């Protein structure tokens, strides 16, 4: 990943730029093009939601941005405005909370790795633990908590780290409806307070429209950008009001039509195999 100086000047409003980003996974028998020619620009302070059929390369895209995976070809520019801050923090898909650390130790993890003094990181961590409604469990181990609470730790851990870019991979995917609604509300509240550049993968169109400034719809096999839909619903947003607004329904239908094609294509391909 490169961060040349002239780009920084030219793209003052951008946080992420990708140019012909391509990722091919080679297995012994075959090769899978997970991402092909992704050209995307994410504005500074934007909340971008990514939807697409499963296996279309959403996770792979985030992992490349997080530096956990290398692209096969193409370029990624991450435009850092605040070099003291960590560049990215990821909320991983699935249970990624360390079982051997207490809730607080988990939430503090990023700060501890950066050498923030114990007292200071405790204060910051406790603030987010409170925000997530986990105060009672700060010193408990995750195995004593429900899946929903673990997911809150997962989200808090990334927020506490205060990165320039937040990467969230279906953070609420495994939650029940009530918990999801509560966490979406929390996330909106926290995010609208910080205005942090965020990429958010979800399989729920609802969720994408509730949270996102734009929704990126992807195609599968190979993973490409199919469309980008702007969500022109003003902030701060109220989830319940928003869901019953005509604009929401319209956008929902738009995205559903885009996705429907892709999902049918994907399942047709599965049958063909």
């Amino acid at each position, binding site marked *: 990943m490169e961060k040349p100086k002239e780009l920084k000047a030219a793209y003052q409003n951008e946080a992420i730029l990708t140019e012909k980003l391509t990722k091919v996974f080679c297995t012994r028998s075959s090769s899978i093009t997970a991402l092909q020619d992704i050209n995307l620009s994410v504005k500074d302070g934007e909340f971008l939601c990514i939807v697409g059929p499963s296996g279309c390369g959403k996770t792979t895209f985030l*992992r490349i941005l*997080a*530096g*956990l995976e290398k692209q096969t070809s193409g370029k990624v520019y991450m435009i850092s405005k605040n070099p003291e801050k*960590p560049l*990215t*923090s*990821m909320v*991983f898909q*699935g*249970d*990624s909370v*360390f*079982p*051997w*650390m207490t809730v607080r130790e988990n939430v503090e*993890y*990023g700060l*501890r*790795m*950066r050498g923030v003094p114990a007292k200071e990181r405790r204060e910051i961590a406790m603030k987010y633990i409170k925000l997530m409604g986990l105060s009672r469990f700060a010193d*408990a*181990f*995750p*195995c*004593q908590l429900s899946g929903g609470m673990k997911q809150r730790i997962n989200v808090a*851990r990334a927020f506490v*780290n205060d990165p320039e870019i937040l990467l969230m991979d279906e953070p609420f995917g495994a939650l029940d409806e009530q918990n999801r609604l509560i966490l979406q509300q929390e996330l909106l509240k926290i995010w609208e307070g910080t205005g942090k550049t965020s990429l958010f993968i979800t399989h729920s169109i609802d969720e994408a429209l509730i949270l996102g400034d734009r929704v990126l719809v992807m195609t599968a096999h190979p993973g490409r950008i199919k469309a980008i839909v702007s969500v022109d619903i003003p902030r701060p947003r109220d989830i319940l009001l928003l869901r019953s607004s005509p604009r929401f329904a319209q956008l929902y239908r738009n995205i559903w039509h885009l996705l429907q094609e892709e999902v049918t294509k994907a399942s047709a391909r599965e049958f063909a195999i």
Partner: protein
Amino acid sequence: MSMVEERIHKTFGRVIVKEEKGDIKSKAWASRGFLLKILTFLSPSLLLILWEILAGFHMIDVRLFSSPSRIFAALIPMLYSGELFYHTMVSTQRIVLGFLAGAFPGVVLGLSMGLFPPVRASLMPMVAATFPIPKLAIMPLILIIFGLGEASKVFTIAIGVFYLVLINTMAGVLNIDNIYLDVAKNFGASRFQFYTTVALPGALPMIFAGFKLGMGTALLLIVAAELSAAKAGVGWMVWRAYDMFDIEKMFVALITMAFLGYVFSCMLDLLERIVIPWKSQKN
């Protein structure tokens, strides 16, 4: 039948009623737990009584199988004279030293083999080739190399413990879910931080499983190690009793070993609860 039930009954003919009185601490369960506890004490006691009776009526040969009362009679003077304590201490020292000498390098090498593929690739063939050799078969070699003193006994135990701890530790590291490695990387953990916050705690449950297996092997090997060129120890007591045909003393030594094994496993359990608190809180 209550009024309501009667009415329902008349209307529907068949009513299934499930009712609980709402005692949180069910008496049935409490008494069941108590019964199970009694059983765990009762069954060994019954066996001892049966043994004593059979011996008393000469239905088993007391010269070979002894009897609980005879063993007890042999145990008491050995306890008072301090003889038993002395032999127990000698063996305990060998077991503890051997265990530490085997477990420590086992953990260190197991961690490195789990973490570094080149280390694993270069050492695995040797481990795989030497692991199946029965440790008893190399005892004569150990005696030749380490002499007849304490070193050979400690080493015999150490070598047995070493392999079990090594293999379990390595498996423990290799079994850590990849997602934790990604988390550490994403949150900027340095190499050293990765070892201390992910690799070691992630492998600890398996490391302890290795310790427990190793402790079992250590008790096995102490008998073999004290067979030759020893002048004290519980294992030596067994062989000494064999030479003297002193069945009671032999049983006393066996009981002592069972006791030692129990104490060591309790200590490992305690240590495990302290070192791996997240595991014990699960239940």
